[in-house]
Protein backbone atom coordinates (compact mmCIF):
# COMPACT_ATOMS: atom_id res chain seq x y z
CA UNK A 1 0.00 0.00 0.00
CA UNK A 2 2.79 2.37 0.83
CA UNK A 3 4.42 1.63 -2.50
CA UNK A 4 1.17 2.41 -4.28
CA UNK A 5 0.96 5.71 -2.41
CA UNK A 6 4.46 6.60 -3.53
CA UNK A 7 3.66 5.68 -7.13
CA UNK A 8 0.54 7.85 -7.06
CA UNK A 9 2.49 10.72 -5.54
CA UNK A 10 5.15 10.37 -8.24
CA UNK A 11 2.45 10.39 -10.93
CA UNK A 12 0.88 13.48 -9.39
CA UNK A 13 4.26 15.24 -9.36
CA UNK A 14 5.04 14.51 -12.98
CA UNK A 15 1.44 15.04 -14.03
CA UNK A 16 1.45 18.52 -12.52
CA UNK A 17 4.69 19.31 -14.28
CA UNK A 18 3.04 18.39 -17.58
CA UNK A 19 -0.01 20.57 -17.14
CA UNK A 20 1.24 23.30 -14.83
CA UNK A 21 2.60 26.54 -16.13
CA UNK A 22 6.16 27.63 -15.49
CA UNK A 23 4.88 30.45 -13.39
CA UNK A 24 2.48 28.53 -11.25
CA UNK A 25 -1.04 29.77 -10.68
CA UNK A 26 -1.80 32.85 -8.66
CA UNK A 27 -4.91 34.20 -7.06
CA UNK A 28 -5.23 37.41 -5.09
CA UNK A 29 -1.61 38.18 -5.79
CA UNK A 30 -0.43 35.04 -4.06
CA UNK A 31 0.97 32.11 -5.92
CA UNK A 32 -1.23 29.23 -4.85
CA UNK A 33 0.14 26.54 -7.11
CA UNK A 34 3.88 26.08 -7.48
CA UNK A 35 6.03 26.89 -10.43
CA UNK A 36 6.26 23.91 -12.71
CA UNK A 37 9.59 24.68 -14.34
CA UNK A 38 12.57 22.44 -14.00
CA UNK A 39 14.32 24.67 -11.49
CA UNK A 40 11.50 24.65 -9.00
CA UNK A 41 10.27 21.13 -9.58
CA UNK A 42 12.96 18.92 -11.06
CA UNK A 43 11.83 15.83 -12.88
CA UNK A 44 11.87 12.72 -10.75
CA UNK A 45 14.35 10.97 -12.96
CA UNK A 46 16.64 13.95 -12.69
CA UNK A 47 16.59 13.53 -8.93
CA UNK A 48 17.19 9.81 -9.22
CA UNK A 49 20.05 10.50 -11.57
CA UNK A 50 21.54 13.01 -9.20
CA UNK A 51 21.98 10.33 -6.60
CA UNK A 52 24.44 8.60 -8.84
CA UNK A 53 26.48 11.67 -9.66
CA UNK A 54 29.37 12.98 -7.60
CA UNK A 55 28.53 15.17 -4.70
CA UNK A 56 30.87 18.01 -5.40
CA UNK A 57 32.52 19.25 -8.50
CA UNK A 58 35.87 18.59 -6.84
CA UNK A 59 37.70 15.57 -8.13
CA UNK A 60 37.42 12.33 -6.20
CA UNK A 61 34.28 13.19 -4.30
CA UNK A 62 31.92 10.31 -3.72
CA UNK A 63 28.45 10.06 -5.20
CA UNK A 64 25.52 11.85 -3.71
CA UNK A 65 23.95 8.57 -2.75
CA UNK A 66 26.93 7.62 -0.62
CA UNK A 67 27.04 11.07 0.94
CA UNK A 68 23.34 10.96 1.78
CA UNK A 69 23.57 7.46 3.22
CA UNK A 70 26.55 8.34 5.38
CA UNK A 71 24.80 11.43 6.66
CA UNK A 72 21.64 9.48 7.36
CA UNK A 73 23.62 6.87 9.29
CA UNK A 74 25.24 9.62 11.35
CA UNK A 75 21.90 11.17 12.20
CA UNK A 76 20.37 7.77 12.87
CA UNK A 77 22.92 6.94 15.56
CA UNK A 78 22.40 10.29 17.24
CA UNK A 79 18.64 10.03 17.24
CA UNK A 80 18.89 6.48 18.60
CA UNK A 81 20.96 7.76 21.49
CA UNK A 82 18.55 10.63 22.01
CA UNK A 83 15.62 8.22 21.96
CA UNK A 84 17.20 5.96 24.56
CA UNK A 85 18.24 8.76 26.89
CA UNK A 86 14.96 10.61 26.44
CA UNK A 87 13.04 7.39 26.96
CA UNK A 88 14.78 6.57 30.22
CA UNK A 89 14.37 10.10 31.55
CA UNK A 90 10.74 10.11 30.48
CA UNK A 91 10.04 6.83 32.26
CA UNK A 92 11.75 7.92 35.47
CA UNK A 93 9.89 11.20 35.39
CA UNK A 94 6.59 9.39 34.88
CA UNK A 95 7.22 7.13 37.87
CA UNK A 96 8.13 10.16 39.98
CA UNK A 97 4.99 12.00 38.94
CA UNK A 98 2.84 8.99 39.67
CA UNK A 99 4.38 8.50 43.09
CA UNK A 100 4.05 12.07 44.24
CA UNK A 101 0.87 13.81 43.22
CA UNK A 102 2.41 17.15 44.13
CA UNK A 103 5.31 16.50 41.78
CA UNK A 104 2.82 15.73 39.04
CA UNK A 105 0.86 18.92 39.68
CA UNK A 106 4.02 20.98 39.78
CA UNK A 107 5.92 19.44 36.89
CA UNK A 108 3.42 18.26 34.32
CA UNK A 109 2.46 21.75 33.05
CA UNK A 110 6.15 22.51 32.50
CA UNK A 111 6.68 19.20 30.75
CA UNK A 112 3.93 20.19 28.34
CA UNK A 113 5.25 23.74 27.95
CA UNK A 114 8.78 22.46 27.37
CA UNK A 115 7.72 21.31 23.95
CA UNK A 116 6.72 24.81 22.88
CA UNK A 117 10.30 26.04 23.13
CA UNK A 118 11.76 26.29 19.64
CA UNK A 119 14.85 24.15 19.37
CA UNK A 120 16.76 26.88 17.62
CA UNK A 121 16.88 28.66 20.95
CA UNK A 122 18.07 25.69 22.93
CA UNK A 123 20.95 24.89 20.64
CA UNK A 124 23.32 27.71 21.66
CA UNK A 125 22.53 27.04 25.33
CA UNK A 126 23.32 23.37 25.08
CA UNK A 127 26.49 23.97 23.09
CA UNK A 128 27.66 26.66 25.49
CA UNK A 129 27.01 24.57 28.57
CA UNK A 130 28.46 21.50 26.98
CA UNK A 131 31.80 23.22 26.76
CA UNK A 132 31.91 23.21 30.54
CA UNK A 133 30.90 19.64 31.06
CA UNK A 134 32.62 16.31 30.62
CA UNK A 135 30.80 13.03 30.14
CA UNK A 136 32.55 9.98 31.55
CA UNK A 137 35.83 11.79 31.44
CA UNK A 138 35.55 12.79 27.78
CA UNK A 139 35.07 16.43 26.83
CA UNK A 140 31.79 17.48 25.36
CA UNK A 141 31.56 16.75 21.64
CA UNK A 142 29.28 18.63 19.25
CA UNK A 143 27.36 15.48 18.54
CA UNK A 144 26.49 15.21 22.22
CA UNK A 145 24.59 18.47 21.91
CA UNK A 146 22.59 16.97 19.08
CA UNK A 147 21.83 13.85 21.10
CA UNK A 148 20.83 15.98 24.07
CA UNK A 149 18.38 18.04 22.03
CA UNK A 150 17.05 14.88 20.42
CA UNK A 151 16.49 13.47 23.92
CA UNK A 152 14.69 16.69 24.85
CA UNK A 153 12.09 16.05 22.17
CA UNK A 154 11.87 12.35 22.93
CA UNK A 155 11.26 12.50 26.65
CA UNK A 156 7.92 14.30 26.40
CA UNK A 157 5.77 11.63 24.68
CA UNK A 158 7.35 8.94 26.85
CA UNK A 159 6.71 10.71 30.14
CA UNK A 160 3.15 11.68 29.27
CA UNK A 161 2.30 8.28 27.77
CA UNK A 162 3.87 6.30 30.58
CA UNK A 163 2.16 8.42 33.20
CA UNK A 164 -1.18 7.71 31.60
CA UNK A 165 -0.34 4.04 31.59
CA UNK A 166 0.75 3.96 35.23
CA UNK A 167 -2.48 5.65 36.24
CA UNK A 168 -4.71 3.66 33.93
CA UNK A 169 -5.64 1.03 36.45
CA UNK A 170 -9.23 0.39 37.42
CA UNK A 171 -9.99 1.12 41.04
CA UNK A 172 -10.84 -2.51 41.72
CA UNK A 173 -7.33 -3.70 40.94
CA UNK A 174 -5.76 -1.04 43.10
CA UNK A 175 -8.17 -1.91 45.88
CA UNK A 176 -7.08 -5.52 45.66
CA UNK A 177 -3.44 -4.60 46.17
CA UNK A 178 -4.47 -2.44 49.09
CA UNK A 179 -6.20 -5.44 50.66
CA UNK A 180 -2.96 -7.39 50.33
CA UNK A 181 -1.16 -4.58 52.19
CA UNK A 182 1.16 -4.32 49.19
CA UNK A 183 3.72 -1.54 49.34
CA UNK A 184 3.92 1.16 46.69
CA UNK A 185 6.98 -0.50 45.21
CA UNK A 186 5.28 -3.90 44.93
CA UNK A 187 2.25 -2.32 43.37
CA UNK A 188 4.51 -0.59 40.90
CA UNK A 189 6.34 -3.73 39.89
CA UNK A 190 3.43 -6.13 39.75
CA UNK A 191 0.56 -3.99 38.65
CA UNK A 192 1.40 -0.57 37.27
CA UNK A 193 4.40 -1.38 35.12
CA UNK A 194 2.79 -4.27 33.23
CA UNK A 195 -0.36 -2.21 32.77
CA UNK A 196 1.62 0.68 31.35
CA UNK A 197 3.30 -1.35 28.58
CA UNK A 198 0.26 -0.83 26.36
CA UNK A 199 0.68 2.93 26.65
CA UNK A 200 4.46 2.92 26.65
CA UNK A 201 4.89 1.29 23.26
CA UNK A 202 2.88 3.85 21.24
CA UNK A 203 4.64 6.56 23.24
CA UNK A 204 8.04 5.13 22.29
CA UNK A 205 6.87 5.22 18.69
CA UNK A 206 6.09 8.92 18.93
CA UNK A 207 9.36 9.46 20.76
CA UNK A 208 11.30 7.79 17.94
CA UNK A 209 9.79 10.14 15.37
CA UNK A 210 10.43 13.09 17.67
CA UNK A 211 14.04 12.07 18.24
CA UNK A 212 14.71 12.00 14.48
CA UNK A 213 13.24 15.46 14.03
CA UNK A 214 15.12 16.68 17.07
CA UNK A 215 18.41 15.32 15.80
CA UNK A 216 18.00 16.86 12.36
CA UNK A 217 16.94 20.29 13.56
CA UNK A 218 19.62 20.23 16.26
CA UNK A 219 22.30 19.46 13.68
CA UNK A 220 21.25 22.54 11.78
CA UNK A 221 21.07 24.85 14.75
CA UNK A 222 24.34 23.70 16.31
CA UNK A 223 26.10 23.56 12.97
CA UNK A 224 27.20 19.98 13.57
CA UNK A 225 28.69 18.49 10.44
CA UNK A 226 28.20 14.98 9.20
CA UNK A 227 24.48 14.62 9.66
CA UNK A 228 21.61 14.85 7.25
CA UNK A 229 20.36 18.12 8.71
CA UNK A 230 23.54 19.85 7.72
CA UNK A 231 23.32 18.23 4.31
CA UNK A 232 19.83 19.62 3.70
CA UNK A 233 21.04 23.15 4.34
CA UNK A 234 24.20 22.75 2.27
CA UNK A 235 22.38 21.30 -0.69
CA UNK A 236 19.60 23.87 -0.46
CA UNK A 237 22.15 26.57 -1.05
CA UNK A 238 22.84 25.21 -4.51
CA UNK A 239 19.14 25.07 -5.34
CA UNK A 240 19.16 27.43 -8.29
CA UNK A 241 22.18 25.95 -9.99
CA UNK A 242 21.55 22.34 -9.15
CA UNK A 243 17.81 21.89 -8.61
CA UNK A 244 17.84 18.17 -8.03
CA UNK A 245 20.42 18.25 -5.24
CA UNK A 246 18.29 19.56 -2.35
CA UNK A 247 15.67 16.94 -3.08
CA UNK A 248 18.19 14.15 -2.66
CA UNK A 249 18.85 15.27 0.90
CA UNK A 250 15.15 15.57 1.62
CA UNK A 251 14.56 12.06 0.33
CA UNK A 252 17.40 10.92 2.57
CA UNK A 253 15.70 12.47 5.60
CA UNK A 254 12.39 10.90 4.65
CA UNK A 255 14.12 7.56 4.27
CA UNK A 256 15.62 7.92 7.73
CA UNK A 257 12.19 8.63 9.16
CA UNK A 258 10.76 5.57 7.45
CA UNK A 259 13.59 3.37 8.67
CA UNK A 260 13.07 4.49 12.25
CA UNK A 261 9.31 3.99 11.97
CA UNK A 262 9.95 0.50 10.66
CA UNK A 263 12.27 -0.36 13.53
CA UNK A 264 9.82 0.80 16.16
CA UNK A 265 7.15 -1.19 14.36
CA UNK A 266 9.31 -4.27 14.85
CA UNK A 267 9.68 -3.47 18.52
CA UNK A 268 5.92 -3.15 18.70
CA UNK A 269 5.50 -6.60 17.18
CA UNK A 270 8.05 -8.11 19.51
CA UNK A 271 6.28 -6.77 22.58
CA UNK A 272 2.83 -7.54 21.28
CA UNK A 273 2.37 -10.40 23.67
CA UNK A 274 2.63 -8.06 26.60
CA UNK A 275 0.25 -5.42 25.46
CA UNK A 276 -3.00 -6.43 23.78
CA UNK A 277 -3.37 -3.07 22.07
CA UNK A 278 -4.45 -1.26 25.17
CA UNK A 279 -4.34 2.49 25.07
CA UNK A 280 -4.19 2.84 21.30
Amino acid sequence: MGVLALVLAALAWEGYKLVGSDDGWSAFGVRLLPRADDVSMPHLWQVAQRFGEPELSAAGSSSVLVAVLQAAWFSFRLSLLGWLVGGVIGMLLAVLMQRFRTAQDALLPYVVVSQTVPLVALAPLVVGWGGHLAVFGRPWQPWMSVAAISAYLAFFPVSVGMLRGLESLPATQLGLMHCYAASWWQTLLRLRLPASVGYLVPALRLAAAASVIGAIVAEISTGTRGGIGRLIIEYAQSATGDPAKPWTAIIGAAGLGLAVAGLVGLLDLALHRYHPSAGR
Partner: protein
Amino acid sequence: MNRAGALGRRIGAPVVFGVAFLLGWQAFVDVRHIPGYLLPSPSAIGTQLSENLADVVSATAASGTNALVGLVAGVLLAVGVAVIAARAPFIEQLLSPLATAVSAMPIVALAPVLATMFSATSDLPRRIVVVIVVFFPVFVNTVRGLTRIDPVHAELMRSYAAGSWDLTRVVRLPGAVPYLFTGVRVASSLAVISAVVAEYFGGLQNGLGSRITSAASNTAYARAWAYVVAAILLGLLFYLAALGAERAATRGRAVRH
Protein backbone atom coordinates in the same frame (compact mmCIF):
# COMPACT_ATOMS: atom_id res chain seq x y z
CA MET B 1 -7.89 16.09 50.51
CA ASN B 2 -11.08 17.97 49.83
CA ARG B 3 -11.90 19.43 46.44
CA ALA B 4 -10.86 22.98 47.23
CA GLY B 5 -7.58 21.77 48.62
CA ALA B 6 -6.90 19.58 45.60
CA LEU B 7 -7.71 22.40 43.20
CA GLY B 8 -5.48 24.75 45.13
CA ARG B 9 -2.66 22.27 44.88
CA ARG B 10 -3.20 21.75 41.17
CA ILE B 11 -2.84 25.44 40.47
CA GLY B 12 -0.52 26.36 43.30
CA ALA B 13 2.08 23.66 42.84
CA PRO B 14 3.21 24.60 39.33
CA VAL B 15 3.11 28.29 40.20
CA VAL B 16 5.22 27.76 43.30
CA PHE B 17 7.58 25.52 41.39
CA GLY B 18 7.88 28.06 38.58
CA VAL B 19 8.57 30.96 40.89
CA ALA B 20 11.09 28.94 42.88
CA PHE B 21 12.77 27.90 39.64
CA LEU B 22 13.05 31.49 38.42
CA LEU B 23 14.41 32.69 41.76
CA GLY B 24 16.88 29.85 41.86
CA TRP B 25 17.98 30.59 38.30
CA GLN B 26 18.47 34.28 39.07
CA ALA B 27 20.40 33.49 42.22
CA PHE B 28 22.57 30.96 40.41
CA VAL B 29 23.53 33.47 37.74
CA ASP B 30 24.22 36.23 40.25
CA VAL B 31 26.10 34.21 42.81
CA ARG B 32 28.26 32.27 40.38
CA HIS B 33 28.71 35.28 38.10
CA ILE B 34 27.68 33.36 35.05
CA PRO B 35 28.37 35.44 31.96
CA GLY B 36 25.50 36.39 29.70
CA TYR B 37 26.72 34.38 26.77
CA LEU B 38 26.47 31.18 28.77
CA LEU B 39 23.15 31.60 30.54
CA PRO B 40 21.19 34.84 30.64
CA SER B 41 19.42 35.61 33.92
CA PRO B 42 15.65 36.01 34.14
CA SER B 43 16.05 39.68 34.99
CA ALA B 44 18.20 40.28 31.92
CA ILE B 45 15.62 38.53 29.76
CA GLY B 46 12.86 40.59 31.31
CA THR B 47 14.74 43.79 30.60
CA GLN B 48 15.30 42.86 26.98
CA LEU B 49 11.64 41.96 26.68
CA SER B 50 10.46 45.33 27.84
CA GLU B 51 13.05 47.24 25.81
CA ASN B 52 12.13 45.52 22.56
CA LEU B 53 8.45 45.13 23.26
CA ALA B 54 7.17 46.67 20.05
CA ASP B 55 9.34 44.47 17.90
CA VAL B 56 8.49 41.41 19.96
CA VAL B 57 4.81 42.06 19.46
CA SER B 58 5.08 42.56 15.70
CA ALA B 59 7.23 39.48 15.26
CA THR B 60 4.81 37.45 17.38
CA ALA B 61 1.92 38.71 15.30
CA ALA B 62 3.68 37.65 12.10
CA SER B 63 4.52 34.17 13.33
CA GLY B 64 1.13 33.86 14.98
CA THR B 65 -0.69 34.72 11.79
CA ASN B 66 1.33 32.17 9.84
CA ALA B 67 0.57 29.54 12.44
CA LEU B 68 -3.13 30.38 12.55
CA VAL B 69 -3.62 30.43 8.78
CA GLY B 70 -1.74 27.17 8.44
CA LEU B 71 -3.68 25.61 11.32
CA VAL B 72 -7.09 26.52 9.95
CA ALA B 73 -6.24 25.49 6.40
CA GLY B 74 -4.63 22.27 7.60
CA VAL B 75 -7.62 21.35 9.78
CA LEU B 76 -10.13 21.99 6.99
CA LEU B 77 -8.07 19.96 4.53
CA ALA B 78 -7.55 17.13 7.01
CA VAL B 79 -11.25 16.90 7.90
CA GLY B 80 -12.25 16.86 4.24
CA VAL B 81 -9.81 14.09 3.39
CA ALA B 82 -10.72 12.19 6.56
CA VAL B 83 -14.42 12.14 5.64
CA ILE B 84 -13.51 10.75 2.23
CA ALA B 85 -11.07 8.26 3.73
CA ALA B 86 -13.64 6.97 6.22
CA ARG B 87 -15.99 6.13 3.36
CA ALA B 88 -13.27 4.66 1.16
CA PRO B 89 -10.94 2.51 3.29
CA PHE B 90 -8.63 2.26 0.28
CA ILE B 91 -7.68 5.89 0.63
CA GLU B 92 -7.05 5.50 4.33
CA GLN B 93 -4.74 2.56 3.68
CA LEU B 94 -2.87 4.66 1.12
CA LEU B 95 -2.43 7.62 3.40
CA SER B 96 -1.51 5.83 6.62
CA PRO B 97 2.00 4.73 5.61
CA LEU B 98 2.50 8.21 4.20
CA ALA B 99 1.39 9.70 7.49
CA THR B 100 3.83 7.55 9.46
CA ALA B 101 6.71 8.46 7.16
CA VAL B 102 5.92 12.16 7.17
CA SER B 103 5.57 12.32 10.94
CA ALA B 104 9.20 11.23 11.34
CA MET B 105 10.52 13.80 8.92
CA PRO B 106 11.22 17.40 9.77
CA ILE B 107 8.73 19.09 7.48
CA VAL B 108 10.47 22.35 8.11
CA ALA B 109 13.28 21.05 5.91
CA LEU B 110 10.94 21.52 2.98
CA ALA B 111 10.93 25.27 3.55
CA PRO B 112 13.81 26.11 1.20
CA VAL B 113 12.47 24.07 -1.72
CA LEU B 114 8.99 25.42 -1.10
CA ALA B 115 10.43 28.90 -1.32
CA THR B 116 11.80 28.10 -4.77
CA MET B 117 8.57 26.44 -5.83
CA PHE B 118 6.28 29.21 -4.72
CA SER B 119 7.92 32.42 -3.80
CA ALA B 120 10.80 33.45 -1.62
CA THR B 121 9.19 36.71 -0.66
CA SER B 122 5.80 35.72 0.68
CA ASP B 123 4.48 34.03 3.77
CA LEU B 124 3.13 31.15 1.73
CA PRO B 125 5.98 28.61 2.01
CA ARG B 126 5.97 28.85 5.79
CA ARG B 127 2.21 28.56 5.90
CA ILE B 128 2.37 25.50 3.68
CA VAL B 129 4.85 23.94 6.08
CA VAL B 130 2.36 24.53 8.89
CA VAL B 131 -0.47 23.04 6.81
CA ILE B 132 1.54 19.87 6.22
CA VAL B 133 2.57 19.58 9.86
CA VAL B 134 -1.00 20.13 11.03
CA PHE B 135 -2.62 17.88 8.44
CA PHE B 136 -1.34 14.52 9.67
CA PRO B 137 -2.25 14.50 13.38
CA VAL B 138 -5.66 15.99 12.62
CA PHE B 139 -6.25 13.52 9.79
CA VAL B 140 -5.19 10.47 11.80
CA ASN B 141 -7.32 11.43 14.80
CA THR B 142 -10.38 12.39 12.77
CA VAL B 143 -10.27 9.16 10.77
CA ARG B 144 -10.06 7.25 14.02
CA GLY B 145 -13.14 9.08 15.27
CA LEU B 146 -15.09 8.62 12.06
CA THR B 147 -14.42 4.90 11.84
CA ARG B 148 -15.11 4.11 15.47
CA ILE B 149 -18.81 3.60 15.82
CA ASP B 150 -20.52 1.95 18.70
CA PRO B 151 -21.99 -1.24 17.17
CA VAL B 152 -25.30 -0.53 18.92
CA HIS B 153 -25.61 2.75 17.04
CA ALA B 154 -24.78 1.05 13.75
CA GLU B 155 -27.47 -1.59 14.32
CA LEU B 156 -29.96 1.01 15.42
CA MET B 157 -29.48 2.92 12.18
CA ARG B 158 -29.78 -0.30 10.20
CA SER B 159 -33.05 -1.03 11.93
CA TYR B 160 -34.24 2.39 10.77
CA ALA B 161 -33.32 1.46 7.17
CA ALA B 162 -31.12 4.55 7.19
CA GLY B 163 -28.80 5.14 4.24
CA SER B 164 -25.04 5.43 4.60
CA TRP B 165 -25.16 9.21 4.29
CA ASP B 166 -27.67 9.28 7.15
CA LEU B 167 -25.34 7.12 9.19
CA THR B 168 -22.43 9.48 8.50
CA ARG B 169 -24.46 12.60 9.23
CA VAL B 170 -26.24 11.38 12.37
CA VAL B 171 -23.66 9.08 13.98
CA ARG B 172 -20.18 9.30 12.51
CA LEU B 173 -19.70 13.06 12.26
CA PRO B 174 -20.97 14.06 15.71
CA GLY B 175 -19.17 11.07 17.19
CA ALA B 176 -15.91 12.12 15.59
CA VAL B 177 -15.96 15.66 16.98
CA PRO B 178 -14.04 14.86 20.21
CA TYR B 179 -11.37 13.05 18.21
CA LEU B 180 -11.11 15.98 15.82
CA PHE B 181 -10.54 18.37 18.69
CA THR B 182 -7.90 16.11 20.19
CA GLY B 183 -6.07 16.23 16.86
CA VAL B 184 -6.39 20.02 16.77
CA ARG B 185 -4.98 20.25 20.27
CA VAL B 186 -1.94 18.19 19.28
CA ALA B 187 -1.53 20.20 16.10
CA SER B 188 -1.90 23.62 17.71
CA SER B 189 1.48 23.80 19.41
CA LEU B 190 3.13 22.05 16.45
CA ALA B 191 1.73 24.79 14.23
CA VAL B 192 3.43 27.51 16.25
CA ILE B 193 6.76 25.73 16.46
CA SER B 194 6.79 24.94 12.75
CA ALA B 195 5.92 28.52 11.87
CA VAL B 196 8.79 29.76 14.00
CA VAL B 197 11.40 27.18 13.00
CA ALA B 198 10.55 27.37 9.29
CA GLU B 199 11.97 30.86 9.25
CA TYR B 200 15.36 29.48 10.07
CA PHE B 201 15.42 27.90 6.65
CA GLY B 202 15.12 31.11 4.68
CA GLY B 203 12.28 33.04 3.16
CA LEU B 204 10.67 36.15 4.64
CA GLN B 205 12.30 37.13 7.89
CA ASN B 206 9.59 38.98 9.70
CA GLY B 207 8.73 36.57 12.49
CA LEU B 208 10.08 35.25 15.76
CA GLY B 209 12.37 32.63 14.26
CA SER B 210 14.58 35.09 12.46
CA ARG B 211 14.73 37.38 15.50
CA ILE B 212 15.88 34.53 17.69
CA THR B 213 18.57 33.37 15.34
CA SER B 214 19.89 36.84 14.57
CA ALA B 215 20.11 37.66 18.27
CA ALA B 216 21.79 34.33 18.94
CA SER B 217 24.35 34.84 16.18
CA ASN B 218 25.22 38.19 17.78
CA THR B 219 25.58 36.35 21.11
CA ALA B 220 22.88 38.60 22.54
CA TYR B 221 21.34 35.64 24.30
CA ALA B 222 19.20 37.63 26.70
CA ARG B 223 17.48 39.25 23.74
CA ALA B 224 17.19 35.91 21.97
CA TRP B 225 15.48 34.44 25.01
CA ALA B 226 13.11 37.38 25.16
CA TYR B 227 11.82 36.31 21.77
CA VAL B 228 11.82 32.70 22.91
CA VAL B 229 9.58 33.66 25.80
CA ALA B 230 7.23 35.26 23.27
CA ALA B 231 7.28 32.06 21.22
CA ILE B 232 6.49 29.97 24.29
CA LEU B 233 3.60 32.24 25.20
CA LEU B 234 2.28 32.09 21.64
CA GLY B 235 2.46 28.30 21.67
CA LEU B 236 0.73 28.20 25.06
CA LEU B 237 -1.99 30.50 23.78
CA PHE B 238 -2.75 28.24 20.84
CA TYR B 239 -2.60 25.13 23.02
CA LEU B 240 -4.91 26.51 25.69
CA ALA B 241 -7.38 27.75 23.08
CA ALA B 242 -7.43 24.31 21.47
CA LEU B 243 -7.75 22.66 24.89
CA GLY B 244 -10.66 24.93 25.76
CA ALA B 245 -12.36 24.13 22.47
CA GLU B 246 -11.83 20.41 23.11
CA ARG B 247 -13.36 20.65 26.58
CA ALA B 248 -16.33 22.60 25.27
CA ALA B 249 -16.96 20.14 22.45
CA THR B 250 -16.84 17.07 24.66
CA ARG B 251 -19.01 18.53 27.38
CA GLY B 252 -21.53 16.00 28.57
CA ARG B 253 -20.09 13.05 26.74
CA ALA B 254 -18.39 9.98 28.09
CA VAL B 255 -15.02 10.21 26.38
CA ARG B 256 -13.85 6.82 25.26
CA HIS B 257 -10.56 7.26 23.40
